[in-house]
């Protein structure tokens, strides 16, 4: 196989690898973000119920850190979805005031939670912890001032497992597609570059006979016929000049 053909096939394989790889990458991440979004919105639905309860308490004049019924609400809501690992309510300093997991009360949430919650332009926010995903809601009072934050921790296994499964299947599809391209593309390229290769072959063949003194071979209908004819004429002309010189030298004895 000609080296030029090999290079063209390599180009096809590299480009196909890039395109198929990017497509698989995009599909995988789209799947992951969609499944994460669905699961998060499911979790936030529980959160919205808790937020309504907190809002109701604030609206009747209770202080944010004095809602006595909230721990029970958190424990009850924790059971409403098996995905949930824990629910925390923390203040603007990041100190947990209420939690479905009582020992956590008084502890500080990771700085990343607070930063994400504060930076979020919407009331809903989300971040990642070591073993859990966290979906949160900023709790605001009647004056639209943030009084605290609600964080729902949920198992990342569900999303990760689904993503890994889908990732595996998408990868398999991508490898299959790439394998198909690896078979089809060289064949298609060989057909397309046949003429180009024929041109090159006839050029190479003609170049092999440049010094022949035989009459010029008929044109091979290649793109290089004109150039080869010119080359032959030029060489022939030069050789004839040298022949004449030779003859004159021989004639001189």
């Amino acid at each position, binding site marked *: 196989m*000609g*080296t*030029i053909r090999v290079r*063209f096939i*390599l*180009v*096809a394989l*590299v*480009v*196909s690898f*890039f*395109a*198929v790889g*990017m*497509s*698989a*990458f*995009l*599909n995988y*991440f*789209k*799947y992951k973000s969609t499944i994460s979004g*669905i699961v998060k*919105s*499911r979790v936030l639905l529980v959160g919205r119920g808790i937020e309504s309860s907190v809002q109701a308490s604030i609206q009747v004049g209770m202080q944010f850190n004095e809602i006595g019924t909230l721990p029970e609400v958190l424990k009850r809501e924790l059971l409403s979805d098996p995905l949930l690992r824990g629910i925390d309510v923390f203040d603007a300093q990041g100190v947990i005031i209420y939690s479905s997991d009582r020992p956590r009360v008084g502890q500080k949430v990771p700085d990343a939670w607070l930063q994400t919650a504060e930076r979020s332009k919407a009331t809903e926010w989300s971040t990642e912890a070591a073993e859990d995903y966290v979906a949160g809601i900023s709790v605001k009072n009647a004056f639209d001032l943030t009084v605290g934050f609600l964080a729902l921790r949920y198992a990342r296994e569900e999303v990760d497992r689904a993503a890994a499964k*889908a990732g595996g*299947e*998408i990868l398999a*599809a991508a490898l299959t*597609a*790439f394998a*198909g*391209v690896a078979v089809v*593309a060289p064949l*298609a*390229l060989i057909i*397309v*570059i046949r003429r180009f290769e024929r041109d*090159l072959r006839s*050029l*190479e063949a003609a*170049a092999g006979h*440049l010094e022949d003194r035989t009459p010029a071979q008929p044109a091979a209908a290649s*793109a*290089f016929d004109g*150039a080869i004819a*010119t*080359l032959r*004429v*030029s*060489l022939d002309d*030069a050789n004839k*000049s*040298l022949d*004449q*010189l030779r003859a*004159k*030298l021989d004639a*001189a*004895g």
Partner: protein
Amino acid sequence: MEKNYLWRVYWRLAGVIMLCVVLALAVVSYFSHRVFEAELVPETQQKAATIAASVRALVIKATGYGVPFASLYGVDQTLREVIDENPEFSYAALTDLDGKVLFARGQEPAEARAYFATPKVLAVSLDPTASWANEHVGKNYFVSQPIRTDKPLGTLHIVIDGKFVENVLLEVMLDVVVVLVVSLFFTLELLNFMAGARLASGLGEFQHQVERMRAGDFTATARIRANDEIGRLLRRIDAAVDHLNVRYEFLVGELEEKLRKATGERREALKPAAQAMEAVKQRLRFGSARKDSDGDEMNLNRIRAPLFAFILAEELTRSYLPNYVNQLLVVIPGLSPQVVIGLPIMLFMLIVALGQPYLGGWSERIGRRRAMLIGAFIATVGFGGSAAAVNLYDLLLWRSLCAIGYAMVFVAAQGYVLDRTGHHNRAQGFALFIGAIMVATVCGPSIGGILADNIGYRLSFAVSAVVAVASVLAIARLPAQEVRSPTSNRPSRGPRMREITALLFNGRFMTLTGLAAMPAKVILTGVCFYLVPLYIVSIGNTSAMAGRMLMVYAVMMVLIVPLSASLSDASLRRDRYVSVGLIISGISGLLLLISDSFLVLFGVVFLLGLGQALSIAAQSALVAEHCQEEIRIYGHDAVYGVYRLLERLGNALGPLLASLLVVFWGYKGAFVAISALVLFCGLAFTVASRGFDPVDDAETAKS
């Protein structure tokens, strides 16, 4: 051989490769669809069940207060919220125990009522142990949840739109189209890099050899040929030429020997042979060929790949950089956050603007390849540092390194092209240089945006660092030996302060620079690099969308610039192209006064690309045309040096101006104000340049 022969081959190859890629993408999309459907539908059904449970709780609460189930108040509103907040749900309904619809919202599927009244569904309503049921009916998925207190009341149904998986995949399709466009450009670039550079230079050399031999030049070239089809062909031609040279040398030697020994009559007999030799010498040339820059075409082509990779590394960051800065923002007293976000872009442009004029001489001294290696290495460190930046302050440092590296590589690569080209092929050399940059600007922002959305800003910067490393490796493969073409022997230098000052107060020069070149750059960096990425994300879109927008701009440039350059050259009315280009650019942002819809934003970028493409090529040619007197006084290098310096300062001003405008008038206001400024400059340039007569290229060249 036709001039476009190779390009026709390339396009045919690219067509086949694209066809294979499209087929492969279709396969991946088909299987992805199956995966999405199999995995997402159950999760969405689970979500629907959770939402249904929440609505059910409200219904039970209301009926607990004694409100009859069929006369509940506010159910419509609750169902509307369910539909509005969850785009994957198309319909929600509350039915009684007979399956009759009491309340409903959304687009009712044709088969809904019949389904609600099926015995199977009615049985769910009455089954005290049933939690929820799901069914694939027609194209939709129905989730039904029974509502009961101490007795069954009815059923809440939520319908999941059967097309929601398609809708999710449709969003991916936009990115897949981007991948296809980028793949096409990659294909052409790779064809050139992996095969074409050698092929083009080989065939070019063959053509050159044909021309030489036709002109009677049979001098031998002592070149090492590649072991491929073209290399073998050239070796055969070399062999034929060598044989001819050996024959000629032998004849010369024999004649000289005979003449040396001959006397009298014998010498007279050799006269015809001597005359024939003289005739051959006059008509044909033998011996060794002179090594000149013509033979360096292969090495010239080799700059394209490293340059493309390096520029791509920087272009990858365009669509998300302002948003990354926003993430690392720190409070700087006295500076608005919007201005702070623009600082890294501004600093980058400023360093490039100030550095480039002086780095030309430096790269000449230490060697182009070495300068490029140092620059690419510094930029790699910059990209790596940017990926790990702690806050804005160190990001500024890392971006400064990127800017220094960028300026070094850009100038050294430009010098590399200059060194290997003469007057006859300089335009071709710069087409190659600009082509690599343009392709990188098409591919970079769109792919960068996709990466940023999916793997995050930091990892995307890491990808840039990896691409920059690839460019270092490609640069290392460039020939270590420095060459200078006869026309590039004069050492280059940056403009002197005296020249800058004089030209700053020169009316003709500043008409072109201040009213055309600088505003064009201000709107480019202000709108494309600063406003578009930030505005798109601020309206709830993604960095990938910003990347697509920037790709539109780059594609316009790739398509229109060659056309406008040849048309403006042919018409000799370059000033008109500059005027029209500036006016179109100026009108672009004003479109946002009509609407701030996404289509209008697309129109803004489209018009901006069109306007810039029309004016950009004509602008620099106009310098030589309008400032002949200045060129005569200060020299070509000085005038163009100051012109480029001011133009690049416009690049630095763009983000600053845009950010200040955002502080006072918001994003839309900033788009409109910058565009209005450019429109004003365009009109002013049109009026101011009316007195200038067009000058023929030949005259320009003479000057």
